């Protein structure tokens, strides 16, 4: 069982940058054809400084967290993990090259079906290099036991 004492645990903050080439690969992988996500000049024509991060890409940047020891500390086994829920609240767009700071905490831990399913809720605040609030992320991870 994942110990509920970890509710409120603050994860090590980190910074991540989305590079334009990675955003273009993401566009290819998701079948994106809108030039605003592929072509810097098209993005600038629409008033962007450069390529914008598409709506879900902040979640991808969370994988760049250099210290993932919290998963082991909580007892999370990646082979048993499913993604249960994901939400974003947006405050301003982020663009290629922005240095984004991710500050996460474990907001909740609970179980269902007598522990057969355990849920870990992670909440993340994202700010940019100007200290402006970019977005809030909420992820619910589900661990299948037995």
């Amino acid at each position, binding site marked *: 069982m994942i110990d509920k004492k970890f509710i409120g645990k603050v994860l090590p903050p980190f910074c991540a940058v989305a590079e334009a080439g*990675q955003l273009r690969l993401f566009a290819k*992988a998701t*079948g994106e054809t809108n030039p605003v996500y592929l072509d810097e000049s098209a993005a600038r024509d*629409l008033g962007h400084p450069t390529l914008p991060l*598409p709506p879900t890409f902040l*979640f991808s940047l969370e*994988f760049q967290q250099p210290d993932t020891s919290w998963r082991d500390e909580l007892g999370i086994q*990646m082979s048993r993990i499913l993604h249960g829920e*994901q939400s974003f609240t947006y405050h301003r767009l982020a663009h290629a090259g922005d240095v984004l700071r991710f500050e996460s905490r474990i907001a909740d831990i609970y179980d269902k079906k007598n522990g057969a399913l355990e849920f870990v809720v992670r909440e993340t605040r994202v700010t940019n290099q100007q200290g402006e609030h970019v977005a809030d992320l*909420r992820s619910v991870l589900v661990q299948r036991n037995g």
Partner: protein
Amino acid sequence: MTSLKFDDVKIGDTLPPLTLEPVNRTTLALFAGASGDHNRVHIDTDYARKAGMPDVFAHGMLSMAYLGRLLTRWVDQRQLREFGVRFVGITHLGHQVTCTGRVVDKFEADGEGRVKLEIQTANQYGEPRVVGEAVIAL
């Protein structure tokens, strides 16, 4: 990009649906590299079977990215305020995802008109796989 006005949108209006190519192993390999989610259950069949799954299966966030495309085809991303989903079923190899959305509410908040959408992905059998909501400023 159409420039929709708050008054032009009615509760019950639907978004132009987005249908993707069936999911295959290349889709998953590309998305693993592009998204940074290298969890082996999505790219390594042997590992997926050991984890109790019949085969590799699609990342939930691939379907959410498709839903993001549904939204940003309808409005400029700068109008997107909230976007949230629940992953209610697994999208398997061979599944053809269709994204749909429908306006379910209109309201004002923070001095702007907003609409709430119900959104979902379904496979070719009509089974919902990812369901959620989005809030858009108009």
